[in-house]
């Protein structure tokens, strides 16, 4: 199978390869796919308090189209707020990379990775809220005890 130019470009010069600290509360990690299916994508987004994606990193186990799809979405999500990032669809990705029908699942996976990363970040934000609340409560009770 011959590869499209954009797939080749991303494959040979993948953008934003790497790892962010997954325990960082501002980092959302999406790990999608399965080794048994031949592709696994890990997309990590650092999202600031305004919900803007500041940094995106990926690592992907998969064919050239899977690697290109994940590389492309790291470029696309950067600087977007999470709403806009979450609206990127597999058709956008497949069209941009001119993926043939047998490779559509790669773009689906990339879309899933964005959604999973955002969901992970949101979960952490809720956790942060809970923490703040418990912290506030404990500070209050401490204050009461001192008084």
């Amino acid at each position, binding site marked *: 199978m011959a*590869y499209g130019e954009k797939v080749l470009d991303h*494959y040979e010069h*993948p953008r934003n*390869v790497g*790892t962010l600290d997954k325990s960082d509360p501002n980092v959302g990690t999406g*790990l*999608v*796919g*399965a*080794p*048994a*299916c*031949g*592709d*696994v*994508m*890990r997309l990590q987004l650092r999202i600031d308090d305004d919900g803007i994606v500041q940094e995106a990193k990926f*690592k*992907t*186990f*998969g*064919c*050239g189209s*899977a*690697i290109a799809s994940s590389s492309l979405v790291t470029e696309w999500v950067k600087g977007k707020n999470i709403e806009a990032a979450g609206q990127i669809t597999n058709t956008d990705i497949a069209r941009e990379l001119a993926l043939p029908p*047998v490779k559509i*699942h790669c773009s*689906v*996976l990339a879309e*899933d990775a964005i959604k999973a990363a955002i969901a992970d970040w949101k979960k952490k934000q809720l956790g942060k809220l809970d923490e703040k609340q418990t912290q506030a409560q404990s500070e209050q009770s401490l204050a009461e005890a001192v008084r």
Partner: protein
Amino acid sequence: MPLKLPIYMDYHATSPLDPRVLEAMLPYFTEAFGNAASRSHVFGWKAEEAVERSREIIGGLIGASGKEIVFTSGATESDNLAIKGAAQFYREKGDHIITERTEHKAVLDSCKRLEREGFRVTYLNVDKEGRVDPADVERAITDKTILVSIMFANNEIGTIQPIREIGAITRKRGVLFHVDAVQGLGKIPFNVDECNVDLASLTAHKMSGPKGVGALYVRRRPRVRLAAMIDGGGHERGMRSGTLNVPAIVGFARACELAQASMVGEAARVGQLRDRLEAGLTKRLDHVFLNGCKAHRLPGNSNLSFAFVEGEGLMMAIKDVAVSSGSACTSASLEPSYVLRAVGVDEEMAHTSIRFGLGRFTTEEEVDYVIDHVVEKVNRLRELSPLYEMAKEGIDLKSIQWAAH
């Protein structure tokens, strides 16, 4: 000699035509263009003479006589003719066929079709090395069994089957024995009498002959009968009608001569190159696994899994080297290789497999280049692989709940 890129290491798929084969073929395209079935003039006689001479040479490579060679368009057709032809002809005698799970699709799909027509087929399992246990063949034979079809050597993992042992059983039990001999032909010795083979599929293009020509060996003593699949002018003793492809047949015979003359030396040379390739790769990379069988293997075959690196992704990276992969991504089906699955390679590892096929024109320089190239690219892709990172962190990948998609 400077290295020429890209390097061809996919000899199981096809092989480059030997220039000596081409030379032998050329006159039969031009001045000796006759139809081998033309009885009335010298053009036909010349073509017929060339065909009959070729028959003897091709038969000679497998210990058969020329009269037992039926020309076909290739081994796919030979497999179809052997299995469907025997099944149809011996239907009165029985309705049961035995084969095994790692056969070529030409065998498996012929059997599947027969199943739809009411035949029963037993698909024997193979062991971790891809070998059929002859005792399993014996146990599977019933009084309704008409045919056993087991390949000589596998096209993905190169495993050589115990053909001689199976042949002794089928002969003793009075069951026909068909062997798809494509991958071993001309590479390692194969003799239809010593192995009690009744039908054997052959093809030219895997042994530096031309594409689109093959043969079915059909035993004469005791005589094996087949129902024809292609009807027409009654060529090839009625078993396969159609004007013979004379230049291709001449080329096939020349390829057999060349293979016979160099078989022992070539097997050793190619085997050493293969071992050099495997030693070089496993010395410089960790997590590399051999799929199949080390001991009973074609000299030119090496099927390796490079853990944490997907096969198609790797092939794209090593674009100067032509190989193939058992990864799903290379087929339209999205299913990884059924051969690897049959030998117990899990799906995850099947996705990381690469098949190297070495042959007559493979050189040591090429092997050394391939080692360097593959090592570099595997390392690059592992840096890109979340699985490699997780494995290095000590995470057991099997403990993760992956979402199948």
